């Protein structure tokens, strides 16, 4: 397929993960040199952006040296040899602070690594630091961090999106080619769209959640951020494997997605889903239709499709996710880890600790969830929301009877200004309207940058695929990327 615009050659950029790993293996660059450059870039600009809550120079350089030593011994250092990676701060790192951007976990050092952290290390990647996020992943702007917001590298007066805003910003700023986030209602895809990078939510169960601090357990999934679709596929392939330590981990083997990412979209049936576009601003909507034309030109069969049931997803999500959060966050009681505010008896200590330790959005969701689960309201709210989940799953199944993938917007607008929506929770929640259906159903979905809005800021186009179809998802996304218009932030050739 021909490429149009600078996006088409992006995977050849010298700072792509694939290029770094190849250079480290061939000894053109050392992992130490790559890591030192990344640390220098962070030192130079992250004072302004605040993508990282904690940078790990000593640990990163030690891991880089281990990779260089493996190369020197002639061993295979792994597919991500010497590649710096940013980790969202809800991923446990042994002996290294893991805060979830909450005061209630400030200073906590987990006694174990998340499975994804181990897999990255085995693949030769270098964890550069822990990134900022909305507290306990609750938010769409990273303004709910107890440690201050992150700024969007494309325009520092704007939010980076959230909740994984720090990882998205770290990739967009060029600090790292890869990042990890978690996506409960869009928390990887929405910040990826707002920052102009690739962000992907795998099928529920594809990536182990052992060591991911739980928010809403039937929805949470870890996934990659990258500058290019190919790099996202490379990282996904490292992460997608069964883990006996996560009882929701899938046993199905995951085929290599990076090996087919350039296979094109010829013959793929693409459904442009108006229900994932209509609520968006006109410039965002226009980019989605242009992306559909790119796929048509690449040989895909493009048709319009309606899935009106998606409209109920947002309300259902904002009952289910808070309900699960209210249960998951009961563990922060001042007993085993994290903050304790002393009081005369245990119950008063629990209340004093939670009152001082949680921010406003976390409290709001805990109360909403507790209410939705309480006697007299359970059936009207929680059980009803669970039935909507079935409704959404059935609607997806109907859609995938006639098309292979769906195409829509990722977020309704480009990045909004810092402070714009902090006092209006419902306005903030509306950011997730296009991403939530995939979480409710447990399906994979991806946001790929596609041009700019009227304000010159990045727009993300969302590709959605049936469960376990990540290879198809990456392939279609790469075809979109290959035809994306050039922007000021397109990766250099």
């Amino acid at each position: 397929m021909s490429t149009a615009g600078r996006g088409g050659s992006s995977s050849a950029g010298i700072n792509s993960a694939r290029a770094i790993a190849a250079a480290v293996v061939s000894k053109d660059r050392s992992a130490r040199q790559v890591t030192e450059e990344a640390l220098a870039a962070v030192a130079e600009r992250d004072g302004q952006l605040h993508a990282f809550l904690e940078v790990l120079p000593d640990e990163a350089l030690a891991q880089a040296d281990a990779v260089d030593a493996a190369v020197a011994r002639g061993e295979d250092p792994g597919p991500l040899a010497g590649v710096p990676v940013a980790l969202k701060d809800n991923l446990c790192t042994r002996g290294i602070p893991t805060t979830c951007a909450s005061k209630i976990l400030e200073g906590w050092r987990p006694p174990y690594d998340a499975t994804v952290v181990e897999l990255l290390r085995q693949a030769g990647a270098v964890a550069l630091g822990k990134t900022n996020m909305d507290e306990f992943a609750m938010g769409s702007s990273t303004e709910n961090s107890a440690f201050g917001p992150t700024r969007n590298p494309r325009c520092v007066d704007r939010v980076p999106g959230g909740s994984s805003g720090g990882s998205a910003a770290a990739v967009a700023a060029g600090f790292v080619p890869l990042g990890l986030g978690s996506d409960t209602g869009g928390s990887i895809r929405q910040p990826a769209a707002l920052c102009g990078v690739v962000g992907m939510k795998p099928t529920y169960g594809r990536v182990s959640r052992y060591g991911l601090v739980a928010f809403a357990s039937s929805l949470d999934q870890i996934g990659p951020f990258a500058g290019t679709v190919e790099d996202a596929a490379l990282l996904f392939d490292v992460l997608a494997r069964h883990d006996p330590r996560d009882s929701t981990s899938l046993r199905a083997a995951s085929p290599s997605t990076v090996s087919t990412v350039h296979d094109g979209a010829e013959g793929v049936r693409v459904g442009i889903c108006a229900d994932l576009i209509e609520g968006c601003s006109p410039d965002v909507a226009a980019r989605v239709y242009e992306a559909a034309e790119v796929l048509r030109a690449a040989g895909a069969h493009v048709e319009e499709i309606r899935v009106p049931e998606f409209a109920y997803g947002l309300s259902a999500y904002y009952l289910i996710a808070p309900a699960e959060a209210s249960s998951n966050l009961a563990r922060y009681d001042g007993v085993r880890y994290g903050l304790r505010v002393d009081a005369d008896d245990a119950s008063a200590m629990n209340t004093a600790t939670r009152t001082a330790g949680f921010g406003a959005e976390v409290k709001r969701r805990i109360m909403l969830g507790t209410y939705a689960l309480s006697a007299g309201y359970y059936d009207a709210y929680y059980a009803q929301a669970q039935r909507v989940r079935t409704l959404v799953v059935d609607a997806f199944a109907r859609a995938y009877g006639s098309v292979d993938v769906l195409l829509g917007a990722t977020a309704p607008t480009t990045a909004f200004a810092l402070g714009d929506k902090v006092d209006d929770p419902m306005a903030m929640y509306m950011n997730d309207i296009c991403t939530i259906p995939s979480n409710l159903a447990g399906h994979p979905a991806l946001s790929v940058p596609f041009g700019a809005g009227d304000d010159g800021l990045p727009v993300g186009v969302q590709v959605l695929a049936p469960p376990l179809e990540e290879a198809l998802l990456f392939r279609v996304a790469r075809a979109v990327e290959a035809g994306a218009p050039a922007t000021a932030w397109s990766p250099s050739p």
Partner: protein
Amino acid sequence: MSATEEPGHSAREEPGQLSRADVIHVANLARLSLSEDEVDTFTAQLRTVLAHAADVAALDLSHLAAMAHPLPVENVLRPDEAQPSLDRDEVLAAAPAVEDNRFRVPRIGPEPA
């Protein structure tokens, strides 16, 4: 993922509007203490969210099963063999207060007579 419901639950109760008292009650259940101002703010904000959920509450979905989880969930078992667990000292090092290799908490229940 069961569709079975007790008789009498099929006619859904329409929830009334959230009150300040509801917010205070829910905060107590969740072990949160709110100032008067916070009660006002949260009451207004939660009402807005619940009003948005009214579209869902009003749907007749009695023909659909409630779905708790996106995957067919089956119990996961492993052989009952001892395996290494987390290091006790490392775990206890993260606790706010420890005594004799145990988590120490303030008094539970009323002051002894």
